[in-house]
């Protein structure tokens, strides 16, 4: 049974292409408003999984409930509620941006009188308003990717399925696209986004699923996984002077290990909870160390992925 807030329930989903098992009995549950990052190397099965969820590829076995609809039987209904951006796509080159959005709005049954405003809003959202009457064939790749997201926004889907949206983009275009995606996640949209470039997903994924060779190796909330994978935290302590004394004091403290110490900056591994961190801070200050910066170093998805991959 699907819970109140559960939007996607995947059970033992499998896809075989002849003798190749592309997705191997995957189970997953996604709640409304969560942003899931599907991470994994090329060939891990991310695209196959997304294509199955997007109803464009039929599973070999298993079941999927998306927004309460059975994917095997009600895939036409599901299509109204999802926005799927394929990995390699293009839009209609012979249309202008406005015409293209009007077409999709019409196809997704947006009321006629609402279409002009919706088109304007979307163009503003993806920051392509000034290009509205240009042909799509005249857009750069980065703009086409943003326009792709815009096409999905026209019908305001409940779930976004984005397959490697930033692949092949230059850094500037990538940053612009990332800004659009962050805006979406900030608005509480449910998003499943795949990438093998982890910096792309850092900062706005609430959950991740690490895929490898068709399996989900690990999945859950990013914080939980970080805690699970990294049994220690990393602290960056900056002091004004007397660094050696500070190092000695840190070493006195239980459950700590100095990783590096350079230029009055100490990186410390500590396997403690928040109260212990506070205690360490107080301990240093009490002993007269002039601490001007004390903070936990955030591990990004890249560290996480590497850590998990190495432990595999």
């Amino acid at each position, binding site marked *: 049974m699907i819970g109140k807030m559960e939007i996607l329930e995947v059970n033992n989903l499998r896809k075989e292409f002849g003798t190749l098992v592309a997705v191997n009995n995957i189970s997953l549950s996604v709640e409304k408003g969560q942003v899931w990052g599907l991470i994994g190397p090329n060939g891990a099965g991310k695209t196959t999984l997304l294509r199955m969820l997007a109803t464009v590829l039929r599973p070999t076995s298993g079941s999927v409930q998306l927004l309460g609809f059975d994917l095997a039987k009600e895939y036409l209904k599901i299509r109204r509620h999802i926005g799927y951006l*394929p990995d390699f796509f293009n839009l209609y080159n012979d249309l202008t941006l406005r015409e293209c959005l009007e077409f999709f709005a019409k196809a997704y049954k947006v009321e006629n009188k609402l279409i002009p405003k919706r088109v304007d809003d979307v163009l503003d959202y993806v920051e392509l308003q000034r290009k509205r009457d240009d042909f799509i064939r005249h857009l750069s790749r980065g703009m086409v990717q943003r326009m792709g997201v815009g096409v999905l926004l026209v019908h305001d889907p409940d779930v976004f399925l984005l397959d490697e949206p930033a692949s092949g983009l230059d850094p500037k275009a990538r940053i612009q696209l990332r800004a659009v995606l962050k805006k979406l996640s900030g608005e509480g949209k449910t998003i499943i986004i795949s990438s093998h470039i982890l910096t792309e997903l850092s900062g706005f994924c609430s959950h991740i699923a690490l895929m490898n060779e068709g399996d989900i190796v690990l999945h859950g909330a990013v914080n939980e996984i970080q805690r699970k994978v990294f049994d220690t935290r990393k602290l960056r302590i900056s002091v004004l002077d007397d660094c050696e004394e500070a190092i000695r004091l840190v070493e006195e403290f239980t459950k700590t290990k100095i990783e590096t110490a350079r230029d009055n900056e100490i990186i410390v591994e500590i396997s403690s909870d928040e109260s212990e961190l506070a205690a360490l801070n107080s301990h240093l200050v009490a002993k007269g160390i002039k601490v001007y910066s004390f903070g936990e170093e955030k591990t990004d998805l890249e560290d996480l992925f590497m850590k998990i991959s190495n432990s595999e």
Partner: protein
Amino acid sequence: MILNNPLIRRYRYSLMRPRQLWIYITIYIAVVALIVFVNYTAYQYQEWFGNQIRFFKGLYYQFLVLQVIVLCILAMINSSSAIKDEVTGKSYDFFRMLPISAGKKATGILVGKNLVVLLLAGVNFLLLIILGMLGRMEGILLAHYFLAVISAAVLANSVALLSSINPAKAKKKNNIVLFIVLGFIFAPFVISSIGIAIRRINIFENVTEKFYTIELPVLILISLVALYFSCWAIKGILRRFTREDEPLFTRMGAYIFMLGFEFVLFGLFYEFLMEGARKTNYLYWLISLLPVLLVPIWSLRSFDRYLEHSGLIQSKSAGNKNLLSAFLRYSNLLPVLVLFAIWTVVSVVTALMTRQALLYNLYYIVILFSFYLFLMLLLELYIVYNPVSDKIGLLLSFIAIVYLFLPLILSGILDNKEVYLYSLLGFSFSMFSFKPYPNISAITGIWLVNVALCIIPIILVWKRYKHILAARKKM
């Protein structure tokens, strides 16, 4: 409202821009002016037409041909390129995700992609009415012509669209092979139409043909047959747009199509079959055998479907009982047998109608079945072994070609007419010339060879079926 269709709107945006529309209109006006100029010159200076009425009538038929070119050829090219454009333009995923009905998608492409063509055809249609009136042609005849052209256009365009809905192949090549195959199946109707046209150059004025015992104007008969097959093509399009990864025909659909084809063909041949000529009977047999060969291809279940189904039947069945028989029922071999059974029943009926010796005809049917079974086993081998080697199709095609042509070549080299019979092609053509009937032992030899040839494919297919079931069990 048809123009409310989003796809028509999309094509209106891209095709009806004034800067490109004027080019089409200019070409059309130039063609029309050229036809009128050439005809008028011939009428005025060479007196080709005799009088003004015949001049306009002559023009009418030329514009009718132009209408056929516009609606059947130009439109067909447009209709068949729509999906290919989506696939090569990398927008096909967006297209297939559109939450509009399959009917709207089909209408959107057939009308939208042909907006310019329909505009020109509309103008041409008005010209045809004017020329028909000036040529003092009967209104009912004009209506028959329009019906025939429109039904031919619907058939051509729906078949063109249907054959193009194969995204995997759209990237690679055009649908020439499919067009040839489809052309082959509809050839009898086309050829008979052309035959009638040539035989009665007064064209179709007051010409009737029999369908069973009903006498119909030939244009109406052609239109009805074309519309009947259009319905199937449109049904196929709707299925392709809703269940993209399913075969074109469901099992039941394949059987109904086969029965319908036999019904139509039987109706067209009825008058001639009743004359009792043996050759007519065999001609009918061979033409009606075409869907028996082609429909299994259009209703083939893929290896992926086999995997899905084997998982399904195992999850439903408590033990191992009847798994293989359930799988066999699902396999592609079942419709192969049923379609041949339908053909056999119809063939026996025609043999009786034409007062042929039933026993000999049953022998023919058994031998034709052995040829057919071997070819269908090759097809099934392709389905089950393609995932193992994607080049298996080449090998199997080679075997099929050798099977069909080697006996013909050997027959020529050895100067032995019996060897010729060991090819399906040779045997089929020989049925017309056996006098009175061939030696039973000779044709039994053919049957035995075919049965022997079937043994290895049967073993291989069987092994593969068992492998699929075993693999599912481990999963």
